[in-house]
């Protein structure tokens, strides 16, 4: 399904994400990597479980609050079958913890720190996803 290119809204949303990451670093000295925060919370490994919990509660409330304040409908269109979503979740969960980061931790925070590790990771997951999409959509025509 086609989607509308939204440069301004997307840039503005990105600025908010950057602000959120700055607040977490300024207040708690933490990188705003969602996979790290989520896995830390799930496995109770780090000492800052209450901080992780508060962050995740806020994260989950962002969409309903935006829906409440905005007149625009929020679209969430998913055409992947349920079994595919289950497999994808497993891959993303395993991959982001094994590879120490996701789009936020490596893609935003890591690149901003000019970390070579994060740049390599970001280039790897981006190119993998682009090649996978090309094969699925244009070779198999799904």
């Amino acid at each position, binding site marked *: 399904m086609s989607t509308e290119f939204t440069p301004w809204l997307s840039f503005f949303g990105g600025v908010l994400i*950057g602000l959120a990451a*700055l607040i977490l670093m300024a207040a708690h000295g933490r990188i705003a990597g969602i996979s790290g925060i989520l896995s830390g919370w799930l496995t109770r490994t780090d000492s800052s479980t209450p901080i992780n919990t508060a962050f995740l509660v806020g994260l989950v409330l962002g969409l309903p609050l935006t829906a409440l304040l905005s007149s625009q409908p929020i679209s969430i*269109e998913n055409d992947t079958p349920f079994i595919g979503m*289950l497999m994808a*979740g497993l891959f*993303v969960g395993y991959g982001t913890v094994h590879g120490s980061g996701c789009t936020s931790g490596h893609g935003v925070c890591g690149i901003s720190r000019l970390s070579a590790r994060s740049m390599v990771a970001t280039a790897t997951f981006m190119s993998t996803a682009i090649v996978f999409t090309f094969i699925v959509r244009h070779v198999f025509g799904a």
Partner: protein
Amino acid sequence: MLPLISAGASGLIFGIGLTVSGMVNPAKVKNFLDLAGDWDPSLAFVMLGAISVTLPGYRLLRKSQSPWFTSKFQWPTRQDIDSPLIVGAVFFGVGWALSGLCPGPAMAALPSAIPGVLGFVLTLGVGATIAHHQKRLKDLVEKNASP
């Protein structure tokens, strides 16, 4: 109380950002990844917007002594490009393309209660826990192997 409020506010602003930017919509992410199809470059603008704040912001924070509510900044220190970094990123890339979701947008989209999103978050937790314990086991074995 203030530490919790600041962490909650950070999460909330993050969630609003993901929603406003359109990243909670898997179709938008899939179209970003489809260079040969109906390409939607929006995701690149999200990253640009975020990095334009965090790049100068982190630089400033590097100069300050300590965070507001804790004794020290936890800046990542690792610099090595090892195989888990690459293997993990490949797994992530496949799952990301298959679903159009990464951990942040998946969490933010939870209140939509769309079955696919709920299922994704469930197995996301399973996969993350598996990788966590695998890492712990490996560290344990390495510790015992070294004299």
